[in-house]
């Protein structure tokens, strides 16, 4: 029996401080809407695993963030999506990579977990599995937005890898010529913006935790490139004590095994949830890596931490705490 439900959602870490207000408002509205959906589901006693899938589907379907529709584009102008989901009780997990026609990657990840003999399927094999499972499939064009086509062009012109953060959408002519000190992530002065990885963690009234993460990956990435989001222990983790989802620099999240480490320091060092998140952000990102973490505990607590400028997030607990925020 748990101590109350709780839920946290993120739409990516690393946000340009100059992000125009209307973009900030749009993002907050989306987060609020998805948070409400998650809260309603939790109030109806839906298990955490169903809640995180539901919420991430909603985020995938909206073109605003970098997942599902609205995903960042590969160097070839296509979309390749990946996601992972983990259910705390039993630590069951499912992950997918290289999806091009599956409308909701997080749901396919769940099917991998529940209906396949494996934990992780990718590319053609994953798409074939999707077809056999009868999930909703669409053309790759469905996921591509005009905004991202523009971003890709700029990225290729700058011949650089883009990352999850935003700069003012004042048009390409000002990109790269910003007077401001450019936001640096992954060692790159970012000159155009890219949308964000999404994630959701939840604990239900039974104290069961779950976590889910979904993304289109890096703008202008090489086809075939896999990041941290589908990797259990790095981008996503859930166990008896907590559920965790991360966003930010893929390399930092992977080598820092961030999601697993939050749970591990709770298990092995007895740290509380926020302490654990703070510990991981401080200690595991110590050589310049930038990332953000959201987490819930089986006791109904919520926590988040990030060492970059901003993380789109929404948090709610059964005892009435509610917050939708971007900045520190």
């Amino acid at each position: 029996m748990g101590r109350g439900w709780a839920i946290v959602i993120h739409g990516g870490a690393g946000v340009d401080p100059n992000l125009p207000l209307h973009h900030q408002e749009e993002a907050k509205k989306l987060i609020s809407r998805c948070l409400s959906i998650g809260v309603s589901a939790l109030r109806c006693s839906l298990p955490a695993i169903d809640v995180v899938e539901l919420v991430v589907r909603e985020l995938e379907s909206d073109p605003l963030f970098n997942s599902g529709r609205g995903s960042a584009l590969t160097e070839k102008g296509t979309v390749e999506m990946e996601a992972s989901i983990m259910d705390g009780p039993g630590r069951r997990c499912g992950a997918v990579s290289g999806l091009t026609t599956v409308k909701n990657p997080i749901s396919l990840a769940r099917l991998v977990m529940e209906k396949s003999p494996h934990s992780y399927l990718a590319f053609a094999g994953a798409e074939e599995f999707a077809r056999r499972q009868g999930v909703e499939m669409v053309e790759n064009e469905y996921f591509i937005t005009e905004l991202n086509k523009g971003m890709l062009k700029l990225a290729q012109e700058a011949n650089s890898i883009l990352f999850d953060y935003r700069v003012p959408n004042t048009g390409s002519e000002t990109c790269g010529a910003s007077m401001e000190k450019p936001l640096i992530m992954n060692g790159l002065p970012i000159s155009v913006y890219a949308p964000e990885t999404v994630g959701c963690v939840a604990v239900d009234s039974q104290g069961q935790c779950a976590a889910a993460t979904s993304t289109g990956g890096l703008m202008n990435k090489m086809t075939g490139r896999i990041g941290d989001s589908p990797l259990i222990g790095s981008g996503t983790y859930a166990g008896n004590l907590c559920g965790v989802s991360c966003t930010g620099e893929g390399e930092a999240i992977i080598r820092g095994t961030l999601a697993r480490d939050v749970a591990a320091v709770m298990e092995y060092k007895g740290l509380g949830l926020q302490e654990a998140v703070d510990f991981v952000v401080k200690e595991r990102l110590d050589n310049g890596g930038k990332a953000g973490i959201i987490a819930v505990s089986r006791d109904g607590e919520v926590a988040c931490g990030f060492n970059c400028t901003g993380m789109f997030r929404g948090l709610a607990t059964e005892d009435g705490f509610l917050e939708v925020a971007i900045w520190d």
Partner: protein
Amino acid sequence: MGWAIALHGGAGDIPHSLPPERRLPREACLRHCLQIGVDALTSRKSPLDVIELVVRELENNPHFNAGRGSVLTTSGTVEMEACIMDGKSMRCGAVSGLTTVVNAISLSRLVMEKTPHLAYVGYGLQYIVFYQEYHYTTRMLQGIETVDASHFITQENVERLKQAKEANRVQVDYTQPVEKDVKRDELKPDGDSQIGTVGCVAVDSEGNLAAATSTGGLVNKMVGRIGDTPIICAGTYANSLCAVSATGKGEAIIRGTVARDVAALMEFKGMSLQEAAALVVGDRVPKGHVGLVAVSATGEVTMPFNTTGMFRACATEDGHSEIAIWDS
């Protein structure tokens, strides 16, 4: 202190009745690889060089489930994956879905050290899991030998696939042609079988650690299935305390975040290498599913497994050396 090396050729339900014609070539290969590794360490090659060398040797040997001799997917093809991690820098590289690259571990190393992203930016991603060679540019594959996909297929594995299909299951690769050696209850359709995979971990006399794992995966696996091997938290991990390479049921290794947990127990609970590894293999994964090899910065070695056997070998600077399959 002092150097140490451990390598494995896979944990599984290796029957004690394994006939000499199947046992001897594997033992000989383990002996040969151990010697190569020891020679490299004593001539002061870096641990990264040592493990790559040893794993290449294991990949080239058709008796182990990696490179040539990889088990087959349900389509009768080979899809190989590998991962390498440097403990000191915690850089890592992983690949999956390879069909023509002779030495997956070497491509992993290339990914770790020289990704195309680095060509664009000064810093950049140092861990990228690529799926399938056709994603690579010729520049990327420089120095990486590729051959026709048929090179990797052995008659033994064609047989194994046939049996697995007849029994309609995903199978342990050390299943013998004689059915009575196969424990039915371990071959659940939802469970990965414990097997194959090769790996090597090493530490030099300065305490620098490195880990490498390589595999063809599971017999009769779905096309596109990714296992624990290329997942940092799961099959392969190295930091400043230890280096770990795991083998067995991929799903159990992923859920149990095996490789990371050995290091986490040392770091967060102050356990010794032996204690940490024993706890992970004893408690964090189901019996009959997992084995691992690990070395510590101080030159200790441990090779626990909870399966019937694990092809393994190790040596330390103080003269200890061992080659074994079952429990001593």
